[in-house]
């Protein structure tokens, strides 16, 4: 089952007369980590949600994952939202909920996820009481349940402390090594350098750069991008 290349042709997304994504055309054949970067409001989260089939655009058929349309492979995808969405239950029960929905019957599966994410200390606390960073950890745990083939991570480490950020980056590298396609937004330049393989840079609803991360930092860039890099 080959989900690459991802091809997007002439994708537009308009809400209330506002053109949020403008004529997006990309072909992505990179099977490592793809970074989606750009200033606030440039359309990163919207773009990921569309690739995940959470937002219906005027024509979703303009997106193909290999041979597949989004609806064919939605169950192979998962997403960590910029603001993690957790159910009003304990962290453990949130993970168990996702495992059940993915028809996972393996005993101790959730315990393994809890170990992997190192969140034993909060596993029996209702998620409404846990901290922002802890919410991100639980959401990341939920996203890897059931071995999805594509994972969208919308600023998944924005609230994590340095050590934990490092742990998550290791998990992301491991996923990527195991052939999971990762799309990740980040404003963290050093993080982009550490784990990114290719980068899509967005500005005002358009993709203005799409190439390897290596080139992104080596080549001379337009003012907008070099500012983004310099301030980062």
């Amino acid at each position, binding site marked *: 089952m080959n989900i690459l290349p991802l091809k997007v042709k002439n994708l537009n997304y308009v809400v209330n007369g506002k053109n949020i994504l403008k004529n997006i055309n990309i072909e992505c054949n990179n099977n490592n980590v793809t970074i989606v970067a750009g200033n606030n409001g440039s359309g990163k989260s919207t773009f990921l*949600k569309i690739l*995940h*089939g*959470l937002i219906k655009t005027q024509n979703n058929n303009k997106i193909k994952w290999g041979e597949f349309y989004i609806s064919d492979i*939605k*169950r192979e*995808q*998962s*997403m960590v*939202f910029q603001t993690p*969405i957790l*159910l*009003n239950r304990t962290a453990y029960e949130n993970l168990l*909920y*996702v495992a059940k*929905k*993915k028809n996972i019957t393996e005993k101790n599966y959730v315990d393994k996820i809890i170990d992997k994410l190192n969140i034993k200390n909060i596993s029996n606390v209702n998620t409404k009481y846990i901290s922002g960073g802890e919410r991100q950890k639980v959401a990341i745990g939920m996203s890897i349940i059931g071995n999805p083939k594509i994972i969208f991570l919308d600023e998944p480490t924005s609230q994590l402390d340095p050590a934990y950020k490092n742990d998550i980056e290791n998990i992301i590298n491991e996923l990527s090594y195991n052939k999971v396609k990762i799309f990740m937004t980040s404003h963290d330049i050093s993080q982009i350098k550490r784990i990114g393989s290719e980068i899509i840079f967005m500005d005002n609803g358009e993709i203005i750069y799409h190439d390897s991360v290596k080139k992104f930092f080596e080549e001379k860039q337009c003012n907008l991008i070099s500012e983004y890099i310099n301030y980062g």
Partner: protein
Amino acid sequence: MLINILETAFDLIITLNDDLFEIINLSLKVTLSALIIAVSISIPFGAFLALYKNKYQSLIVLISNTLMGMPPVVLGLLIYTLVSKKGIFGFLDILYTPTAMILAQTLLIIPIVISLTYEEVYKKNKDYNLLLNSLNLNNFSKLKTLIYECRYALVTVALTGFGRASAEVGAVMIVGGNINHYTRVMTTAIAFETSKGSIELAVALGLILILISFIITLLIKSLRKIS
């Protein structure tokens, strides 16, 4: 004078006076039956309305919201015309029975529970629909999850319905007829006993009603805290 009445009323309550007990017992039976029927229909239906957008949805919600404010006595009148001898459901022969009273209270509670459930589930769906869609759930699973996530709020909704129905007098008076030992409930008994001048029993029942309302308020308050 007032002290004497209260004293007798408390006496009636503390000694669990037979008449008093019978009336309270029937009231609770009628209202609880109505509540169970109404809730088991209205919670799934209200949640369904919140989840499925279509052109009838907003109309149904509008109607439900309107019916929520309908005076119970009008509802009683309506049911009366339907189940009285000449009505189209006259053959059921349920006028002046507890069944008719349960029917009236059920219909009274249904729009309340539908409208309030709709609101709660609609709000929750806004918070959760990205996650539920991301998990690729079918609509039935979404509905189950949202109802579960609203569980505390929905108990509050049910309590609100219970409070409304147990305090209501017009509808059960019309369709129940306030028949002694058969269809006499707390509210109709209060109206009747007062008009008859035997104020002590009425006051005793009034105190019980206030107590019930107090308990419901307490429950709702503590539910708000945990949810």
